[in-house]
């Protein structure tokens, strides 16, 4: 744990980053920007896992392993998402959520 820094401060910062990610997710129209916001949300959650692990249960390491697996899953998710975005761009020549209405109706 960090000397002089309490759990409350870390959790506050991760909550702020989480909701900045939510704000970006709601306002952005570009698929890649939405992906960036999702990465912010995932990272805020990972910080929470590590903070609880280090500050409350330093003997166990569940938070550490959850964060490791979360990073691996995020890598898989981004690989698939970017493949889909590139394919979609070749199909409709745009990565805007408003213009990708192929399957809407």
């Amino acid at each position, binding site marked *: 744990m960090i000397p002089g820094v309490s759990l409350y401060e870390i959790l506050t910062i991760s909550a702020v980053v989480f909701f900045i990610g939510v704000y970006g997710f709601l306002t952005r129209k570009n698929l890649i920007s939405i992906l960036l916001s999702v*990465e912010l949300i995932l990272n805020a959650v990972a910080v929470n896992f590590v903070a609880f692990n280090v500050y409350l249960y330093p003997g166990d390491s569940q938070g550490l392993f959850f964060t490791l697996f979360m990073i691996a899953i995020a890598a898989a998710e981004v690989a698939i998402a*970017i493949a889909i975005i590139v394919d979609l761009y070749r199909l409709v020549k745009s990565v805007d959520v408003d213009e990708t209405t192929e399957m809407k109706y």
Partner: protein
Amino acid sequence: MERIIFYILAAVIVTFSFLSVTSAKILRAAVYLFLVLIGIAGFYFMVGYHFLGAVQLTVYAGGIVVLIIFAILLTEQIDNRLARPKAGMVIASAMLALLGIGVSVYSILNHVFDKKIAGQLATVDDIGTKLLSFDAGGYVLPFELISILLLAAMIGAIVIAKRPIR
């Protein structure tokens, strides 16, 4: 000393995450996300999880951001400005985000956490042993599942991205 470094890291993380969701140029947004990820890796180093910090730097900052930048270069002109969201949408989302921050910070600050249970932080040695351990508290099943998932994601990404152009 640690406190000052923590606050500098916190300022970097919050400032650049805000810039990364508001920047009008998408390549800059990706670079701001890169700085946020480096700040979070610094946090992992500060709490004593050096292995996790290294993984964050290599996989997230080194791999995922590069992948995102490739996607940006493949899909659009980088000097294109992103469309500004509608004012009503901005206000509604900002209200929602501020409400969420308010509620969660209020409940965090009013919650008394359990007493810390003493123990030693896991070292890299412990991580390696636990990841491949079959005993209680071992993580060999999720480890193997993640391996299959990454393989499946890799094959899926290749198949989707290599489809012939119609």
